[in-house]
């Protein structure tokens, strides 16, 4: 995973509450073999409507999405995080996120940044005309107008994102312990491996 120390750019002022995983990416998109290319299907039902923010040229190339409470609720499909990533989103700012979505976002190097509703409201305003900056070192979100909002993040996740460590790398650094466990099982339970059919 690449380290994520900061995200800067225009933000899409979406603002909707309870955005569920079906809205982010509909079930029919689950029949895919790649993490890539799901951006096309992201927010399909929202984009079907004229004048939606996602297709507004003002926000072309935006790297941040601003949404309402309980972002990413619904199923555990990781496709939601992949779809956001594929459409170029690197961070989502919302008052709250579903647990599973935060975890899936983290596993894919996407920032899920919780901020109080007032801060989100202010950023929605700024987003219409100006870029927003997220700094992971100081854990803060700033605007060109001197706004500064700090956020919290699980220290483990924060460190993984800052250092670009993925969970697999971290686990692999424990390979001695894994090998020791395997050796223990091999000697105590010789029956343990599936017999070759």
């Amino acid at each position, binding site marked *: 995973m690449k380290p994520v120390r900061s995200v800067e750019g225009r933000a899409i002022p979406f603002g909707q509450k309870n955005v569920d995983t079906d809205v982010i990416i509909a079930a029919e998109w689950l029949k895919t073999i790649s*993490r890539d290319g799901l951006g096309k299907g992201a927010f399909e039902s929202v984009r079907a409507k004229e004048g939606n923010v996602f297709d507004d040229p003002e926000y072309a190339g935006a790297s941040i999405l601003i949404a309402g409470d309980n972002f990413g609720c619904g199923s*555990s499909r*990781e496709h939601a995080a992949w779809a956001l990533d594929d459409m170029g989103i690197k961070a989502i700012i919302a008052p709250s996120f579903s647990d599973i979505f935060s975890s899936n976002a983290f596993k894919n190097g996407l920032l899920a940044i919780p901020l109080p509703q007032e801060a989100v409201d202010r950023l929605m305003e700024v987003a219409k005309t100006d870029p927003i900056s997220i700094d992971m070192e100081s854990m803060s979100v700033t605007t060109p107008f001197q706004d500064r909002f700090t956020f919290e993040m699980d220290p483990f996740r924060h460190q993984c994102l800052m250092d670009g460590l993925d969970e697999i790398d971290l686990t692999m650094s424990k390979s001695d312990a894994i090998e020791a466990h*395997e050796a223990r099982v091999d000697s105590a339970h010789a029956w343990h491996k599936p017999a070759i059919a």
Partner: protein
Amino acid sequence: MTEAKTLYEKIWDAHVVDQRDDGTALIYIDRHLVHEVTSPQAFEGLRKAGRKVRRPDLTLAVPDHNLPTTPRVDANGTKIPIADPQSAAQLEALEANAPAFGIKYIGASDKEQGIVHVIGPEQGFTLPGTTLVCGDSHTAAHGALGALAFGIGTSEVEHVLATQTLQLSRSKSMEIRVEGLLGPGISPKDLILHIIGVIGAAGGTGHVVEYRGEVFEKMSIEGRLTVSNMSIEAGARAGLIAPDETSFAYLKGRPMAPKGADWDAAVAYWKSLRTDDGAVFDKTVTIDAADVAPTVTWGTSPEDVLPVTGQVPAPESFADPSKQDAARKSLDYMGLSAGQPLTDVSVENIFIGSCTNSRIEDLRAAAKVLEGRKKADGVKWAIVVPGSGLVKAQAEAEGLDAIFKASGFEWREPGCSACLGMNPDKVPSGERCASTSNRNFVGRQGPGARTHLMSPAMAAAAAVAGKLTDVRELIG
């Protein structure tokens, strides 16, 4: 004196590779089942990072979700192509990824092919005391044999492939104690639907459930698999039933189960896998088996259950306002009205299959009801989908296929089929289905499909009557 432990604690403790200060632990995974839908991106991730599968010998791959249940090879033995290009691509990806990473693969036209959760136990891949995962939430089924088994997401699939471990936090433990035995005509499916009705679809959240009581001791492994399979529908992470002589007899001689001296050593260990006297559960729920009737769902959550003799509830009858609202939406979606007797509800589709109820006993129970009878004229589509090629062959040897066909059912190839609207077997919008599967969510069996969950015998009875029916009247 050693401290008394639950079965869950025993399995957990035996698999801790590394304990972290924050309470989470790196847990070793003994068995990994892989299917076509949740694995392609995991293999792609491994490839991009230049990683291998750590223990291909502990991994088993089989296609099931997308695979059509119509014949897979023609009269000359040539593969019949799959019409939907996206399904075909997912299936081809698994077929290519398994050998590329050295994983044993059971192919679409192999006689052992079937639903992941049917073939795991059937092949003896699932063993008591092991940790088992799969990228599918009904992995809980394998707990029937005393394995700690649960569903995982795609990044976790990749993590297990690469490291054979998962970083997990320990769940709470819940005991579901059933007192007494089931009445005549009442099946394990009725029992688990009743249990979900009692504890609710979120009743088991954060817990691993252990099912205890005489009824489970007397239950076959097929029945235990049905019960444990639906643990997830009560919100639980996993279900467990302690291994016993019935489990050992079921596993003995299965292709991937231990043999000879290994077998004896394994059984000796498995016998230690029981919750100790004095061990404490975080929560205990007691159910009286005498309360369990033939049970069906009326709504769009698996907790929306009633005895088939009941009436559709009025939304106002629920105390919780959010449940009232959900019930209103459910009734609207299901096309039902409050007060309607369930036995007045007609059905146009019958699905006997899924990892919940597609094993040999399930097919026997349905065939027993159907023998000498025909499906009602109003039933347009009735299919039986055996859980695996081996179940299919066994059923054919017993002549069950002939009974199904004579009563107007189609006899299909193994797969997930109409359990989820991902392959061609779908229930048409606005139509009703008496289904032996595990989820009655909005759109689960196809957009607009109306699902009533029930046991195989009850689904067979619904086929004969053309409406929801108390099977006890047919077999009485």
